[in-house]
């Protein structure tokens, strides 16, 4: 059975999703535990896969028993496994959180919601695990469709947000499809490993450049890289909180994963770094995104919208790290995938918890929340501090590596952007701290009113992991460095 784990992580999800309607028709209350069970299984398998990759090297699984490039291959290296654990972990934790949160925000629709939830999780895992570029597209679509649907069940404006996301998402997916088509037409293969062998002789041809541009733009839309982020703030603001949390922690990260995969596995680093300055362009765009995202976040007063713009900025960090393309920055970028997931999922869950208890979204109305929901807000503080990059949190570790990488590249602008934008981050989070904990000095007693345990527990766990991994950041860094050393010359 063990050798089938790469496909089981997807098969479990698919079977789980197909069973959900049956279960839901029997008793709809069972849907949520079922989704938790399925995502838990996926999470466990992903941990095992990571362990296996670290212990025994890369895994290749031939679907249908066909040897690649004829069949579809699941190729798992450290990066895949790392992102798998991350995505599956987030999906699992949020599924526990979602029971109350979704039940409150979207009552009575458990059956389709959790079916789509599992499909979204599986779609994302499918993107990550695959070694076939067309298969990536297919799973991207599964995930995207589920995401559109889940976003659309939020408040009234969520419909339009979802529609715009769908338009952008379709453009993105079509670009990716077209890029895949170009690569296929020029090489005759769809397997990533095979592509990377056949592409080098074509470097320098305009068509490869166009294909690269299409793929990069397409994936950048999925990733919400500034200035293609326009779908993200609306979608995250108006989606149900659990969905915002999940998407913020996973989908954009999966997009980044795909970007890294295309850049560094399908197309070789030499090409994107030296032959064509794709990385250089991307890094400047990302730097602009960091600043723009932060500034826009400062301008927001809706807590979820602020977090969404903060995501735009943080995604800039990740892309900047990856696109500086030296070992340190790359390590920092990939580590920031992890840290941003942890922080942002936690923060969105807190936002959801606040909405669940009080319905407040305006950050200037959060007065006294620190007394009302002490644990939730403590988790928020940890997440936000990590976002700012205060040690000893995981956010600090990744920013440290990013800045170090920029220093290594001797690009002082990037050093300044990375370091100084944490101040901007501090500005928009500090407004919340002031309101939550200090604000107007009132002597009235505020009664403690925490969210239910099933919501509180994931929040606290994320906060704890943010802190713990910050203290033991060498663990993830060791894993990532292992991969980065193998990829970059």
């Amino acid at each position, binding site marked *: 059975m063990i050798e089938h784990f790469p496909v089981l992580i997807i098969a479990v999800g698919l079977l789980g999703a197909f069973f959900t309607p049956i279960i839901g028709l029997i008793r709809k209350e069972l849907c949520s535990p079922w989704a938790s069970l399925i995502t838990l299984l996926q999470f466990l398998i992903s941990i095992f896969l990571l362990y296996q990759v670290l212990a025994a090297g890369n895994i290749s699984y031939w679907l249908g028993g066909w040897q690649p490039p004829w069949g579809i291959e699941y190729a798992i290296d450290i990066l895949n496994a790392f992102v798998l654990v991350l995505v599956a972990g987030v999906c699992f934790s949020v599924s526990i959180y979602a029971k109350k949160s979704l039940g409150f925000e979207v009552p009575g629709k458990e059956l389709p919601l959790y079916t789509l939830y599992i499909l979204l999780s599986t779609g994302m895992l499918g993107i990550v695990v695959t070694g076939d570029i067309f298969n990536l597209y297919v799973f991207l679509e599964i995930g995207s469709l589920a995401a559109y649907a889940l976003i659309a069940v939020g408040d009234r404006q969520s419909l339009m947000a979802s529609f715009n996301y769908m338009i952008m998402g379709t453009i993105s997916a079509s670009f990716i499809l077209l890029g895949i088509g170009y690569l296929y037409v020029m090489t005759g293969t769809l397997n990533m490993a095979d592509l990377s062998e056949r592409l080098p002789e074509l470097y320098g041809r305009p068509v490869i450049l166009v294909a690269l541009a299409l793929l990069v733009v397409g994936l950048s839309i999925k990733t919400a890289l500034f200035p293609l982020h326009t779908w993200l703030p609306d979608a995250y603001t108006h989606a149900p909180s659990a969905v915002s949390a999940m998407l913020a922690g996973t989908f954009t990260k999966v997009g980044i994963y795909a970007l890294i995969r295309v850049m560094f596995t399908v197309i070789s680093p030499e090409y994107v770094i030296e032959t064509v300055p794709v990385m250089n362009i991307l890094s400047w765009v990302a730097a602009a995104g960091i600043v723009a995202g932060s500034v826009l976040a400062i301008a927001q007063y809706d807590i979820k919208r602020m977090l969404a713009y903060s995501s735009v900025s943080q995604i800039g960090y990740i892309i900047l790290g990856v696109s500086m393309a030296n070992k340190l920055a790359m390590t920092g970028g990939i580590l920031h995938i992890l840290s941003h997931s942890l922080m942002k999922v936690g923060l969105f869950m807190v936002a959801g918890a606040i909405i669940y208890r009080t319905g407040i979204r305006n950050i200037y109305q959060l007065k006294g929340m620190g007394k009302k929901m002490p644990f939730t807000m403590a988790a928020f503080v940890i997440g936000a501090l990590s976002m*700012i990059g205060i*040690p000893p949190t995981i956010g600090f570790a990744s920013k*440290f590596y990013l800045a170090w990488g920029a220093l290594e590249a001797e690009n002082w602008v990037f050093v300044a952007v990375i370091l100084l934008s944490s*101040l901007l981050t*501090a500005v928009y989070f500090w407004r919340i701290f*002031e309101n939550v904990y200090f604000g107007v000095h009132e002597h009235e007693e505020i009664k403690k009113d925490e969210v239910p345990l099933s919501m509180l527990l994931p929040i606290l766990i994320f906060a704890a992991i943010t802190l713990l991994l*910050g203290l*033991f950041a*060498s663990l993830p860094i060791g894993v990532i*460095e292992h991969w980065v050393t193998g990829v970059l010359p």
Partner: protein
Amino acid sequence: MDNITSFSPALAVLASLVGAIMILVFRKQPNIREGVSLAAGISKFLIIATMIPAVMEGRLIELRLWDVLPGLPIMFRVDAFGLLFGLIASFLWIFTTLYSIGYMRTQKEHAQTRYFFCFAIALSSTIGVAFSANLFTLFIFYEILTISTYPLVVHIETPEAMRAGRKYLLYLLTAGVFFLFSILAVYHYTGTTDFAFGGILEGKGIPENMLKLLFVTFMIGSAKAAFMPLHSWLPSAMIAPTPVSALLHAVAVVKVGVFTATRIILYVFGIDVMKETGLALAMAYVAAFTIIVASLFALTHDNLKKRLAYSTISQLSYIILGVVMLTPSGITGGMLHILNHAFMKITLFFCAGAIIVAAGKEKISEMNGIGKQMPLTMLAFTLGALGMAGTPATAGFVSKWFLLIGSVEIGQIPLLLVLLASTFLNVAYFFPVIINAFFKRPDKELSYREAPLFMLIPLILTGIFSIILGILPDEPLAMVRIAVANLMGGK
């Protein structure tokens, strides 16, 4: 010189951290909560005190915990300098806790649990800074200190306090960013962030301009030390409750800044580099400038706490001035002044707080005749003020004496003059308080008495200590001498 591995440094840091958690647990029972706070303070001091013998033998106590980032461990190394600072901070924490209990209860302040909790965390990180063996560890505690003191600064939660808090954060977080950059650069160039007696930047082929830039960013990074262009957070932060001003803004936070700056100057850059690049002299003049200008500012403020704040800014620069003289006497004077200033300044702040609590007065001009009502308080204040001015037989005199010698040694007469001038300025801004208190008649009948015992006893004790340190400076001096010997021998 062999090093000892021991868990004591970590225990010292943990003591107040555990205390902080206990404080949260017992938030509903004020007595137990404050008892915990006090117990944590005492045990912390005792733990640190146990390290004295080993250090006095000239040995280092080391503890390497895990690697937070690959190659960048959390590591403690207790040397004489660090231990001295740790001792001061933890010793004074005991008094401040006592004082806080009195202050907070008398004023019926809100959110006392938060107050004691943050205080404990802040102390924990102060000790962490004192014992850090490398820049990285130091930075972690440095940032935690910034964050944990913020709630203390804005404790009263008025809009004005919030504004001050923002200013505080703006300065210190920006400083943190510059500090982080500097650490990164050091690590990038040298591959280590460990402190070493001769400095670590020498002979690494770093261009001189880069060195100078690094020095500047480092000094911006230690903005906690309130050098002159970066000082304005400190007077604003005086909006905090007085115990906070006393311990944190006179002892812990600003001293952490100065301590950090000293560590950087002596243990990262090293004496040779500082000398060769001429950075030492430049810094000396920045410090001299700060001494004079801050004293002048102090003269203009009628608010006692503000005046004390500017006095702090000025006195801190004594320390830096001493350190950048780079001679044994100068460094001795500087390091000793960390100790002496701590005791004197905390006394002064305690007195200011006592006046606020007992008389409700903050302005110097309103303090006429206060000495008759609160004789003990004002006596302690006078002792502190005399020390500040460097009157012989007070603590201030000892350190100032070494500074004067140092300035002569390096042959910088302007610095000597600055030191002398500042003495007069000190007199000029402290004596009006004393004169008002003792010799001026109040406009109307005064009805208040001494502050509660909880507050009175600590301030008397610290006042007495600041005299004892002046009369019997041998013990601390011995410790400082070891630190200086290490530095000079490390060449």
